[in-house]
């Protein structure tokens, strides 16, 4: 169970959002929507604990994430705007590193996963030489061998082709059906079954509340 309690985000004395509350139960997918600059990425950085909220708390299994980072990070997968893929290493080496650092207990076949994300034949090319979409796929490949119940995905479909988006949608549904949770932002409409799928629309605060 993932909870966000009265979260307020302030950047440069400007209020991005105010008293945000939501709860995510196992098996739910939450899409965060809103125009550019409304604070989606800032919200995600608060949710994963990379930045500290102005006020409010984020709870994972009834525990404030700031107080118990280790157990939260064992259960959370975050894919941000910056992919975290090392450009001078090959796709295979990147996967290997992510596997050992994040999910060492999961057994996986790197070749099979590279085939699934459409990178078979490119495994020994440094990722810097791959196209933007292929680089993105290297980062997204982590979802295939992650045993974390909570996935937080910031714009996962950037630079991914239509076919790839469908594959990822299917993976998200499979993850939710197994009892996982997903929070993601995207500007695309997703074809997800409505019983699994929630939307949260961020709006700019009212004129009187824009500054601290």
């Amino acid at each position: 169970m993932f909870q966000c309690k009265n979260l307020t985000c302030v950047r440069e004395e400007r209020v991005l959002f105010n008293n945000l509350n939501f709860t995510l139960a196992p098996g739910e997918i939450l899409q965060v929507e809103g125009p550019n600059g409304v604070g989606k990425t800032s919200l995600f950085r608060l949710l994963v604990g990379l930045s500290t909220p102005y006020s409010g708390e984020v709870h994972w299994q009834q525990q404030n994430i700031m107080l118990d980072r280790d157990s939260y990070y064992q259960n959370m997968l975050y894919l941000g705007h910056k992919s975290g893929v090392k450009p001078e290493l090959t796709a295979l080496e990147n996967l290997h590193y992510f596997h050992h650092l994040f999910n060492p207990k999961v057994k996986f076949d790197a070749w099979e996963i590279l085939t699934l994300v459409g990178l078979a034949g490119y495994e020994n090319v440094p990722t810097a030489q791959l196209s933007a979409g292929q680089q993105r796929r290297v980062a997204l490949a982590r979802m295939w061998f992650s045993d974390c119940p909570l996935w937080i995905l910031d714009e996962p479909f950037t630079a991914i082709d239509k076919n790839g988006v469908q594959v990822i949608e299917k993976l998200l549904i499979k993850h939710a059906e197994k009892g996982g949770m997903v929070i993601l932002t995207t500007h695309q409409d997703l074809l997800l079954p409505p019983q699994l799928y929630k939307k949260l629309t961020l709006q700019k605060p009212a004129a009187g509340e824009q500054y601290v």
Partner: protein
Amino acid sequence: MFNAFLQIVRKELLGAFRQQSDILNPIWFFVIVVTLFPLGIGTDPALLARIAPGIIWVAALLAALLSFERLFKDDFIDGSLEQMMLAPQPLTWLVSAKVFAHWLLTGLPILLVSPLLAVFLSLQENTFWALFLTLLIGTPILSLLGSIGVALTIGLRKGGVLLSLIMLPLSIPILIFSTMAIDAATFGQSYIGLLALLGAMLVAAMTLAPFAIAASLRVSVS
């Protein structure tokens, strides 16, 4: 947990060997500075032997400063620093691995070329051993202290000047004690006490710096 440490070191080394200019640049700088001195001030062996320890140590310090830029910067830009901070292992442990890899890529090459430079600067054998030992103990301290500075300045666009301002005052004690030890060796005195002081600094830096680095990264990246 040890596996995570090894994986980070492995990744750093692999990355560095793919981009060799990054590792060669500081060591090249070090060698050039030291070899230019005899050309600039003449080749009188007595004079060179007198100022050699200072030259080598100052060059090592500046070479270390040059190499800090890439310690967390690339990782910050491509997002792998963010991911490292979200890993299920303690961040202090993971940054220790980064610093260790940094030392392997910058401190160790300096140690390896130091015999050659000792010949250039006509050092006596016992002076050379003192130099070697102070470099062996001193360069890891430089890596650890520098990492704190880098972690503090990483979010800034022009952090380079600030980094040297933070870093140089902290590294001056190491410079003083190292050159004192080498001077003592030149005059045939015992320098074990000075080495012990440097060792104490290394132990303090190894145990405390990773916490400072981790805390600074949490502040800088947010």
